[in-house]
């Protein structure tokens, strides 16, 4: 019966292709809208071929007020918080991965528990707390909270990646009298480059897209990151310029898409998720 089996396989493949293409088309429609509208002089809310390609929308938004300041704010907030997160996570993961202790298990379980808490729920008390301690509307406050919210997952990921680095090299370094910190910085981290890249990119991408945290913790417009300032397009400017909104969305989204592609390429497909979800 091998021929019928082969025929059935081909039929299945065609059916699967058709099903996937249908889903892909549905998912692609909103993405098409943003790309086409960004290039369209008379953009509205539906997907349509632009009447004449133009870069006017980009011209209109690419200035300090609308785009560059918010993007720079995003970069400062997310970059600062990512550095803090990755630094703290690498340090914390080292003893968890390298030394046995009775505290490891409870600590890791608490960390894992914290990764899945709905951070949205604590934003109201965080706001109230930040008002009390004068951290409201400050960059450092927002950076610290961002780092705290991302740290549990970062520690968990980092520890799993570190477990994959063999211990032998460090043991040689220890005999030569290297301290823990030295062997972490000189031996372990360089060996787990891809792992560090994943944690860094993942933290950055999550924070770059986060709306609620800066929306709650920052007040003055000149400190707002792109995630919040994008709402200005709907503000009191009367008619919404959909073409400009689309152009801004493209500019704001491009960095994270590129970062994702960069990491996914190097690690293949579902990168960190396998390790993250299955522990």
């Amino acid at each position, binding site marked *: 019966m091998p021929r019928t089996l082969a025929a059935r396989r081909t039929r299945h493949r065609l059916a699967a292709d058709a099903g996937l293409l249908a889903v892909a088309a549905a998912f692609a429609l909103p993405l098409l809208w943003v790309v086409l509208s960004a290039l369209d002089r008379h953009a509205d809310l539906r997907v349509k071929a632009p009447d004449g390609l133009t870069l006017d929308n980009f011209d209109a938004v690419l200035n300090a007020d609308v785009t560059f300041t918010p993007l720079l704010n995003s970069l400062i907030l997310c970059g600062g918080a990512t550095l803090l997160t990755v630094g703290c996570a690498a340090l914390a993961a080292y003893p968890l991965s390298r030394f046995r*202790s009775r505290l490891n298990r409870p600590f890791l379980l608490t960390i*894992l528990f914290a990764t899945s808490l709905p951070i949205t*729920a604590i934003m109201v008390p965080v706001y109230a707390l930040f008002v009390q301690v004068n951290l409201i509307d400050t960059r450092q406050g927002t950076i610290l909270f961002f780092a705290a919210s991302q740290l549990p997952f970062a520690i968990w990921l980092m520890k799993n990646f570190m477990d994959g680095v063999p211990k032998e090299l460090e043991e040689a370094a220890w005999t030569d009298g290297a301290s823990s910190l030295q062997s972490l910085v000189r031996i372990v981290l360089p060996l787990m480059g891809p792992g560090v890249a994943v944690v860094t990119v993942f933290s950055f991408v999550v924070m770059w897209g986060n709306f609620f945290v800066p929306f709650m913790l920052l007040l003055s417009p000149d400190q707002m990151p792109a995630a919040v300032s994008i709402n200005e397009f709907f503000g009191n400017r009367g008619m919404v310029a959909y073409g400009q909104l689309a152009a801004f969305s493209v500019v704001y989204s491009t960095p994270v898409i590129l970062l994702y592609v960069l990491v996914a390429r190097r690690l293949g497909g579902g990168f960190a998720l396998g390790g993250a979800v299955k522990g």
Partner: protein
Amino acid sequence: MTAASHAGPGVAPAAPDPGPPEPAPRPRPRPLRRALTRALPVTPALVVLLLFLAGPIAYCAYLAFTDLQLTGQAHSSFVGFANFRRAFQDERFLNAVWLTLVFTVLSSLVGQNTLGLALAALMRRASKPVRTLTGGVVITAWVLPEVVAGFLLYAFFRREGTLNALLDQLHLPSQNWLFTLPILAVSFANVWRGTAFSMLVYSAALGEIPKEITEAAEVDGASGWRRMWHITLPMIRRSIGTNLMLNTLQTLSVFGLIWVMTRGGPGGRSQTLPLFMYEQAFQNSLIGYGTAVALLLLLVGSLFSVVYLRLLRTEV
């Protein structure tokens, strides 16, 4: 891979010695001091977590029992369970609970989870270019910033948007989706945005099923559905559990997406708990009441989180 496997081979579990023998023969400091030195690198993370995560959670548990308001009040006082009693008599709160339930079941349990599994299963049979294209589109929707995703789907569901344009072309009745069925629109938006995660999880899980098993069933003539139901699903049930928990937790805390699309309206008809909490705390200036709602949300989240940990524990 967690701490469960820490008692590695060759270590007698009965040994009361707090630390394992060092590999290199060097002078051993006292155990306690050594333990402290070793734990030192954890300190920065611990300080940040205690101050900015554990602190707010504790503060949340305290505020929920006070009548703190945003303005014009010198002192807040302890009011016991008043905020919670108020919540359960508040029709708008109950409405938000109901909508959160609808939103979670529709978008996470039914939508993201099922569609993600279907995509992963189809991808195993499809040809490579189709697989790559679909994966790329679905993952792009996931990587986009939340607010951008909100705008894209706002445009899609608006009266003059793409969905109605399509329906017009097919001569089907169009309507103002964000007004008539706002909760359905935001649920679809969440499916659009979140399916990639399930797809990746299930792709990994399906990849681990040995080929011989499915092939044997195929040669025996078991139909696709029967193979799915009797062989594939039981083999990936742990991934299903983990994925459902993570999806649900993520969906419970969606704020930006709904905020951008409908602001919880019209008339609170897409107001899930996070939006209700925000409205009470900031538009109605009732920080204490808003925090009580937040605490309830946090408790539900913790419950799911504990179940998730249990699921993981059976796996590791």
